[in-house]
């Protein structure tokens, strides 16, 4: 039951991810991307990681809304305006993509999949347990990543701010 459900959701994920790439209209791409992220949420729910699922749902879908606005405001909305790339660019893209695939497949093969990781507790993904682990065992990485986010935020504000001297 759960294995077939997993394969079904995984199929959906890959299907919509392919549609993101193959649709000519940037707005359609963005909409397929939303569906792809939604299937990620389903994967997290099947792993019983409720908190991660809902955060993925909120953060990524909110983030895509921003992307949506960018697509509307910054791109010319004519169909096919994206497809006109030179052959050299296409070749470079294919080579880069193949390199990524080889790296990913290689690293997955190097992983010992015959010995799957067994979760000690089934409820590890619930908010309470996740919070306890984050604030005790992984406190340092957690704080460092929060500083990273803070600096990114300050950088964004600095870039968006008008330069008072020049105006």
């Amino acid at each position, binding site marked *: 039951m759960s294995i077939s459900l997993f394969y079904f959701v995984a199929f959906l994920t890959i299907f919509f991810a392919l549609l993101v790439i193959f649709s000519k209209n940037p707005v359609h791409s963005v909409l397929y991307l939303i569906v792809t992220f939604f299937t990620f949420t389903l994967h997290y729910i099947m792993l019983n990681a409720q908190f991660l699922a809902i*955060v993925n749902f909120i953060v990524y879908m909110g983030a895509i*809304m921003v992307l949506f606005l960018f697509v*509307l405001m910054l791109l010319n909305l004519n169909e096919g305006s994206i497809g006109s790339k030179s052959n050299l660019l296409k070749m470079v893209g294919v080579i880069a993509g193949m390199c990524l695939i080889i790296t990913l497949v290689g690293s997955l093969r190097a992983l010992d999949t015959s010995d799957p990781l067994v979760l000690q507790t089934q409820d590890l993904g619930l908010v309470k347990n996740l919070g306890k682990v984050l604030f005790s065992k992984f406190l340092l990485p957690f704080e460092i990543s929060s500083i990273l986010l803070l600096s990114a935020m300050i950088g964004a504000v600095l870039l968006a701010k008008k330069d008072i001297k020049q105006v």
Partner: protein
Amino acid sequence: MELAFIIEKFALILVIFVISLTIAAYSTLAERKIAGFLQDRVGPNRAGPGGMFQPLADGLKMFFKEEIIPTESSTALFILGPSLALFTSFLGSAVIPWGQDVEIAGRMVSLQITDINVGMLYIFGVVSLGVYGIMIGGWASNNKFSLMGAVRAASQNISYEIPMGLSIIALLMSTNTLSMKEIAEQQHGINWNIFYQPLGFLIFLVCSFAETNRTPFDLPECETELVGGYHTEYSGFKMGAYMFAEYLNMFLASAVMSTLYFGGYNYPGMDWVNEMAGSVIGPFIGMGVLILKIFAFIFLFMWVRWTVPRFRYDQLMNLGWKILIPLAIANIVITGIVITIFEKL
């Protein structure tokens, strides 16, 4: 999964679905009646006694009107927009606890469709999904005014989600749980969260006006500037779906505010009433109290709509980013300090 569980949940879903539909339909009548009252006129009073059948008449009219799909628009997305808006506005009521557990034939039946332990975040997620209906519809209309309305809706939604989330964080710090059921249980009697989080409630209230696109924040459909906003090109039932979604969102926002801050199904003296009425009738009285609270909030929404004029767009953004977010952060800090002091004592 046993059969009784499935039947019980199915019945509950059906009941809540029908209740939300009825309340949303009659909200349209209430809106016009309240507008009439506030403007010193009668309001709709022709269809049925006192205008009782007006929502039915409006619904029929919506069904029989011609559906126009603009030729230059993307048809699938044009239909998807209102459908998504209507669909997402139904999702949120799944985690609202409508009452205490009822004992029917020896089974404890919970008056909540599902108690996921991230209930509050779930509502937050559903609310953020709701704007996609407006966004997709507005874009697919292939109309400048619709697009302007849709972009406004999206940026407004992004801006007001942040203070809303921050005000929820302050509430979380005092309740220590994300589950809607536990939050409701903690407010037993008159121990409501509004007494602990008055500022948080105020911020949440303002943000929910913005998230449901109600006046004074209804800039996405600002008719003085944008003809009809994101639904300019919509007619017939699709237009009706957008309107219905707005009223459903209002219902959901009222239910969430009643549950988070105003005790949900709790009311003073509920233990005594439960003892007198028994373990079956008692919880349903609580449910009635919750619905009364929801009505009060819906009335507040309408009262504000017919009292306060619309904001200008830059005022809206200033209020969101420069006033509400700092206030919400200050609220978190104050809550933290107070909790620490009370724990030390």
